[in-house]
């Protein structure tokens, strides 16, 4: 059991959670992820590390309620059954700071993808590399942690589909205008967004790193549920990733593979809503 300090709603469908997990974050480097379980019988949910306080041993996560298991997580108070990590590999830039000191870097975040982007931008700033951030969402309500990301980004560009905040359009609209200013791009967000960014950056030959978030079970390289196709070869996102060279990822396949349990997930969400509703009242 892990002590939960808070689990607060930060937008219509997103939550921020603080957990005491000193061993999990002691060695963590941005880009890595954890797997959490609400209760002993819950599903294992992979979440990229959003923030941490190494001195106090606190791990911070941001997650979006998308199905039954994340809905259940949003009801967790006081104690979390399990949090395993850090899992996967650190972000390549964060892990090899010196090689990237003189590079011009842009981060592209989509929706809740700002959660994994934030710790990388913060870490790079702490290590003397300032980067630009382009952050897009459907509307203003879905733009999260603006005050935090603004503090660590060199230049901050917002974009919303409906123009309710920042520029109107997509992250690619903003990126294309400035694309010649950068040597490397890191794009994290919905698969469809990462796909669009990579189509654009490929055209301009801009190296792009993406973070894949496929279905997972154990997260330690045992089950192969998270396989992605990278450079024509199957890779396990949990131990070979989660970050890959975006120009080599087969996004169309990744999009299709996200639907493996679509029907089962919808049934469960319905079931969980009924169950949690009962508990509450």
């Amino acid at each position: 059991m892990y002590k939960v300090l808070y689990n607060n709603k930060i937008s219509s469908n997103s939550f921020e959670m603080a957990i005491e997990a000193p061993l999990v974050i002691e060695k963590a480097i941005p880009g890595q992820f954890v797997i959490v379980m609400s209760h002993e019988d819950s599903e294992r949910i992979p979440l990229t590390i959003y923030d941490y306080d190494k001195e106090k041993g606190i791990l911070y996560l941001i997650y979006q309620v998308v199905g039954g298991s994340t809905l259940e997580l949003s009801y967790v108070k006081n104690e979390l059954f399990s949090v395993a990590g850090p899992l996967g590999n650190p972000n390549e830039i964060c892990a090899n700071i010196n090689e990237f000191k003189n590079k011009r870097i842009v981060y592209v975040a989509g929706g809740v993808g700002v959660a994994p982007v934030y710790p990388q931008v913060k870490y790079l700033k702490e290590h003397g590399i300032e980067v630009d951030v382009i952050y897009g969402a459907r509307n203003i309500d879905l733009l999260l942690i603006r005050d935090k990301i603004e503090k660590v980004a060199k230049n901050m560009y917002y974009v919303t589909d409906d123009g309710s905040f920042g520029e109107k359009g997509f992250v690619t609209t903003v990126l294309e205008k400035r694309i010649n200013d950068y040597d490397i791009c890191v794009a994290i967000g919905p698969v469809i967004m990462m796909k669009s960014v990579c189509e654009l950056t490929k055209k301009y030959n801009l190296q792009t790193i993406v973070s894949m978030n496929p279905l997972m079970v154990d997260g330690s390289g045992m089950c192969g549920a998270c396989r992605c196709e990278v450079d024509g070869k199957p890779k396990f996102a949990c131990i070979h990733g989660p970050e890959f060279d975006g120009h080599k990822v087969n996004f169309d396949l990744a999009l299709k593979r996200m639907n493996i349990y679509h029907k089962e997930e919808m049934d469960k969400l319905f079931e969980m809503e009924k169950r949690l509703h009962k508990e509450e009242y």
Partner: protein
Amino acid sequence: MSDSKVKGRVQEPNVRVNNFNEVELGFNDEEAHLEASRCLNCPKPRCMEGCPVKIQIPKFIKAIKDNDLKLAYEIITESSSLPAVCGRVCPQEKQCEKMCVKGLKGDAISIGSLERYVADVAMKNDYASTAKKESNGKKVAIVGAGPAGLTCAGDLAKNGFSVTIYEVLHKAGGVLTYGIPEFRLPKSIVQKEVESLKKLGVEILTDVPVGNAITIPELQDKYDAVFIGSGAGLPKFMGIDGEDANGVFSANEILTRINLMGAYKSLSKTPIKKAKRAYIIGGGNVAMDAVRCLKRLGIETHLMYRRSEEELPARKMEVEHAKEEGIIFDLLTNPVRILTDDNNNVIGMEVVNMILGEAGEDGRRSVSEDESSKHVVDCDMVVMALGTSPNHEALKNSNIVLTERGLISVENSKTSLDNVYAGGDAVTGAATVILAMEAGKKAANEIINALL
């Protein structure tokens, strides 16, 4: 005295395909006594030669005959840390029972069933021995809470070591927990065995990915010795077209969802695919476990293996049980490619008949494709049970020496690193529970000799 063995009771096939309860019900007192009475108590017991952990088999069987089950349990646990597990999942027909003199002319003694009987009685009556030697002040770290790690931990704790196990999953047991299904090895039994280790003072830290959260060199600094029992690794796939379709899984994924996450229960929060017809590719115990699990979910299940029944690597008994349960065996057949619809869902599989050739140097018969026999079968799920390739996650940031196959290189359980030992599937590649236990036991002995 009868020459045929006492048949243990089992759940009837037509009943058990609808539940996940244990298939074999085990001996009752009378049956156990009767079976024990068949043992000749040989002065030179061949059965013991067949036992990897050298249980004093005739001695414990005699204790059953004498109605001293506490003694029988003590005799078994002198050599085995997990008797309730071994009694159920050891391939006895290839080990102790194969060597039994009685088997020459009739039925061998059912040593496995007797071991299980003793362990179950012991659990029910709480015989678990918590006797341990005084602390010797030495600390050992164990990587992985599977059969190798648990055995090593038990032997060390009994000898006064302070033992800490690091496990990446949320539950201890390794393959006993995530792999072997409830109907062969109830999870309550595994957890009781784990509890009895805790009673010996073994500390188990779950949720810790060694290699990331703490590295092997750091464990070397913190502990007097380290044992790595990190398991078999990544599931293999065939590399054929369509293998990344929705509906193609590794057997490990199917088993983990069902056994570790309880996906077979109606209120489970972890889903499992509701397929109509599934093909499980492979012929080992993992393939048998996966196919029998899926059968219990109401799926029409086929086991596809490229050689013939004679070469099936799975235990005979598992094959028999699978057949009784109505699993369809498509032998001498192999997948060529998997067919999908526009949404990447599996809709069928092209397969080819195989021809058996001569035995090669490794003793296995070669196989070749009968090109003219290619045909398509309808299915919406394909499960690959083809073995594993090494996973080096736990070894990150250590320069441990590996073999050509990528396994941890050891000599008398010792790795290339100071005070670091290893055993089980991480050293041998995917093998059996009992061989992993044997390796854990050997390593514990080496550690005891080195440190005391």
